[in-house]
Structure formats: C-alpha cells, structure tokens
C-alpha cells in the first residue's frame, strides 16, 4: 500500500502515547503474554459469561464481536426511527456488568457494538461511566465505515459481488452500506490511550488483531505474523463456539457442563505463538477437534482467507493439545492485504409472510397434506401473488427438503409451514392469514396456528477502493 492511502494514514508515534489504565509494558514493546477474552459473538449473546471472564480471567483485553452480516443494516433502520438508537441493545447491560471489573483489573475493551451508531454508543457509555463513578476513562469512537453516500454516487460502476451487476440494478431501497474497516483505526485509538474502543462495521478478526499489533508493535505489513494473529482471532471471534458451544452431539461429541459454558481466551506471544483456552472453573471444552471446526467455519478457499488486514493461508496450520482445554496454533502464513475493502449493502426487498399449524395423531400427515392443498387453492382463488413460495413439513423435511432421510412409519406429529416472499406487504400478510384460517376452515384435529409477517432486509456485497474509506478516531475523556 502506498503511504498516501487514507486508510493507512492513521500512523501514530508510540513515544507520544498516553499510558492507559492497563498495566502493560511500553506500547509496542510488550514481552509478556497478552490475554484477550471474547465476551460475545453476536448481538444477542449471553451477558453473564463476559462478566465472569473479565472478573476472573486476568484479561488484558475483552473483545465483544456482535455484528452479523445483517446486523448493521437492521441497526440503521432503528437509527432512522430514533437518532439515539442503532447500537447494540445489550451494550448497556454488558458494560454495567464488566466496567467495574475492567477498571479494577486494568482490562481494556474493544468492540463493534457501535453498529450503525458508534457515537450514540459512546455517549451512552460516557453516561454509564459517570453513573457508576468509575473515574477518568478514555472512550474512543471509530467512524468511517458508513460509505452509503459513496456507494450511491458510484452505483453505476460498483458491482455486486454475487451477480457482477452494477449497484444501480438493485430494485429495492438501499438503506445502508458499511465497509469492513481494518485494525489500523483501533490501533490508533489504543495508542491514544483508549480504555474502551467502540466501532461500527470492521473485520471480525481486526478487533482481536488491533490489541496484538498495538501491544507487540507488529508492523502492519509483517504478513506472516499478522496471519498468525488472524488465525488466533478466527478461533475466538465466534466466542464460545471454540469452547464447547455449537458442538455437542451426545455419544459422539460430549461437552462437560454445557450449561455453565465458559467463554474463550487467547494467550498471544510476541512472536505470534498462540494458545486458545477458556476461563477456568467453567463448563465446555477446548480441544483439537472443536478448534478444527472453528478454523474452517465460514471460510472458502483455506489458502486465501481474506481479512481487511492480511490474506491468510490456513493450509499449513497445525493444532496441538498442550494441556486440558489448551490448544496451541502454529503455522499460518500471510500475504499482502487486499487493495479493496468489502462493503455490506442493506436493501429493503419486500416482505415475507409465514404461517404454521400442527397436526397430530393417526392420519396426521394425511390431514397436513390436505391442508397444504386447501391453502394452495385459496392462494389461487384470492389472487395472492408471491415471488417465491415454500412449503415445509416440520418433523419430516423442513431443513433438508428432498435430501431428508424419511421415516418408515408416518410421523405421529407434523407441523405444516408456508413461507412466501412478496414485493408488497399485503400479499405476504394474506398468505399468513390463509394458513391461520386453516385452523377452522381446513381439515380437522389441528393445533392453533401461528403467523408472522416481516420485512426482508437483504444484504448484498461489493468492493470499494481503500481510498474511498476514511476512518476517523474520536477520543473522549470521561471523568
């Protein structure tokens, strides 16, 4: 990258840094092991394990990663309704629990809970710091991921990654466009003394790479070392999915005390050696098998895992169990980061209507089939237009369709489900109503129905040049 690239202009001078509340070595010169915990891996993740993690985990950093592909777009809609909303709804509950421990233990927080409104999140955090009487605390806000104006201005030339078509061909209303920022602005925030760093959209890995780069002074073009850090980040960015969640299969993959699941911790060394572990005295498991599942989670070509900071080659990564609930990651090579940044574009694409009703007992499947026939006929009779219609038999084939293994005997219970998408709300609602009325105007002996109507917020992706994205760090000292 040329030095003139705005995304890279956030260089800082370590000698000018203000020491933060964590008791780390001089910035960039850390020799000791760095401990980074992950307190959440999606917007609605559980609150308590993060508190436990920071209370007992001897953490240098606590990271909350809460933005799935659609989360920022949904938050943008919230913000349009209420200018002070649009950040993570559980942020306050999380911070209320962890900030006193962070202050006591010298743990800094890095999070993308700012979602579509990092400034609003920072304002709310400042209020909370005062309310809790935490004393002087530096809150950094990272802005610049919102590239909606740029994308709308360049809608003729920017291409949708999935289809290759220009953005201008998108039919629905574009409500948001957010670039995945890299670690650089977060590193700058830490260098300027931030105790809490709040961002919107950024690379998930970047949230974890930023403290590593800051503490160890890793150059932002040391691709192999960054790749090692990103491999560790990839392990824990899905939170407890590396420490026992999303894994158990009784008799095959047993997880001890899953209810008391502990959240993960990375132990990072200056040379990029990393151990994945979890909070002591908790349930769950960290072993080679679950780490392998997590390493492969949501990747395409393992030789080219693209992050905003480095392209990682996982093909020579080795995982070794070095103790109970401890896995050492080695290998992992890096290549120069991509020239462009990925952008998620949120688009209002109509409405989905759904209706469900259950049949049980002898002949349940026959009655469900008759109900399907009746509802389909009524859709025709009423002239309900749907762009796509799907009918599932829950208990038989709702997740895997024709590929399902079918039982030899008819099921005792089956739940009929209709789901349809339409450009207009009215047809989606009428579909849901036609399923609802099956309870009294369809076959006999059914349960009560349920219906749902929701707006479709679809996500498309495109690439923009780094020069189009201008990250900005705002520091606030709250006393």
């Amino acid at each position: 990258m040329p030095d003139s690239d705005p995304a890279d202009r956030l260089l800082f001078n370590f000698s000018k840094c203000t020491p933060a509340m964590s008791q780390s070595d001089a910035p960039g010169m850390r020799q000791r092991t760095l401990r980074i915990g992950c307190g959440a891996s999606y917007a609605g993740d559980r609150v308590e394990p993060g508190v436990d993690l920071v209370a007992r985990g001897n953490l240098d950093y606590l990271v909350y990663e809460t933005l799935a592909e659609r989360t920022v777009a949904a938050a943008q809609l919230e913000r349009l309704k209420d200018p002070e909303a649009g950040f993570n709804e559980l942020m306050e509950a999380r911070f209320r629990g962890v900030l006193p421990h962070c202050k006591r233990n010298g743990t800094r927080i890095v999070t993308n809970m700012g979602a579509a409104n990092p400034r609003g999140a920072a304002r709310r955090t400042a209020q909370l710091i005062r309310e809790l009487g935490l004393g002087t605390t530096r809150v950094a806000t990272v802005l610049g991921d919102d590239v909606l104006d740029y994308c709308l201005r360049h809608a003729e030339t920017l291409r949708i990654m999935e289809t290759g078509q220009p953005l201008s061909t998108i039919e629905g209303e574009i409500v948001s466009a957010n670039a995945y920022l890299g670690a650089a602005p977060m590193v700058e925030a830490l260098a300027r003394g931030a105790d809490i760093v709040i961002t919107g959209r950024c690379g998930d890995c970047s949230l974890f790479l930023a403290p590593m780069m800051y503490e160890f002074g890793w150059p932002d073009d040391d691709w192999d070392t960054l790749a090692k850090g990103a491999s560790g980040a990839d392990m824990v960015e899905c939170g407890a999915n590396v420490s026992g969640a999303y894994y158990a299969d009784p008799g095959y993959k047993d997880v001890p005390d899953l209810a008391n699941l502990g959240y993960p911790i990375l132990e990072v060394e200056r040379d990029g050696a990393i151990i994945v572990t979890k909070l002591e005295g908790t349930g769950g498991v960290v072993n080679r098998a679950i780490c392998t599942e997590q390493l492969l989670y949501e990747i395409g070509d393992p030789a080219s895992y693209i992050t905003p900071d480095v392209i990682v080659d996982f093909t020579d990564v080795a995982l070794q169990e070095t103790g109970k609930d401890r896995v050492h990651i080695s290998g992992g090579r890096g290549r120069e980061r991509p020239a462009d940044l990925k952008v998620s574009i949120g688009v209002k694409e109509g409405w989905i209507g759904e209706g469900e009703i259950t049949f049980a007992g002898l002949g349940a499947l026959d009655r469900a089939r008759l109900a399907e026939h009746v509802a389909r006929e009524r859709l025709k009779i009423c002239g309900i237009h749907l762009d796509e219609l799907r009918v599932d038999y829950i208990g038989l084939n709702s997740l895997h369709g024709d590929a399902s293994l079918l039982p030899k005997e008819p099921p005792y219970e089956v739940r009929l489900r209709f789901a349809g998408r339409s450009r207009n709300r009215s047809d989606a609602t009428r579909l849901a109503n036609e399923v609802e009325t099956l309870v009294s105007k369809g076959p006999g002996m059914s349960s009560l129905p349920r219906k749902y109507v929701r707006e479709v917020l679809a996500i498309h992706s495109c690439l923009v040049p780094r020069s189009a994205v201008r990250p900005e760090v705002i520091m606030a000292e709250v006393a």
Partner: protein
Amino acid sequence: MKTFYLRELAHARAGDKGNTSNIGVIAYEPQYFPIILRHVTAERVKAHFGSIVTGPVTRHVLPNLDAINLVLEGALGGGVTRSLSLDPHGKSYSALILSMHVEVPDDIAVELMLKGRRPVARTQEEAKS
C-alpha cells in the same frame, strides 16, 4: 467393505456467506481420513444434497488437520437474508452431510464396531429381525 454413515467417522460444522454454504468435515481419527477423501467427493456431495445446491461444489483438502472444506454455491435459498428456509444459514447442513454413506475397509469397520458404531446395512437387518 461395510457401509457406514459418515457420522461414524467424522464430525462437521457448517458456515454461511451470502448464498454460499461451507462445511468443514473432520476425521475423528487420522486413519479415517483417506476413507473420507475417497468417498466424500465434490460430485457425491452435490448428489447427496440434491435440489438444495443449485451451483457448483468445490472441495479443499487440509491434510494437516485431517479435514476437508466443502464449498456449496447457491445452497442457501438465494442468500441468508432473503431465504424462506427455517435454517437460512444452513447450519444444519453439517448434519445432512453426516448422513452420507461411506464404504469402510474391514479393519476400520472392526475398529468402529468395537467402539459401538454400527454399519448402515446391519442396522436395517436388525430392525427387521
């Protein structure tokens, strides 16, 4: 040779990006990995998933980890955010892949049965008797 469900030899986790599903399939033991390489091919996976997958299937091999990564394009009902499926992310596809049949050599079959794992055909015969 005996036929087993892939579930007896491997575990799996599925992820999503847009309209593409990826499934990591990992051998429980290194000696099972060659069997997986032989039988869990891109072609067989595409056939197993049937109408769920509308695009190509690509297989990446990670010998260090006794694992393969399967990339299934056009497998998420038009994309996670607009799919009509109850499982828009295709997370349960990891369970679907484990219902594939694999042919297991006799020595490994004995090893599996000593662990209490049963071949597919044997289970059906037992059900009849």
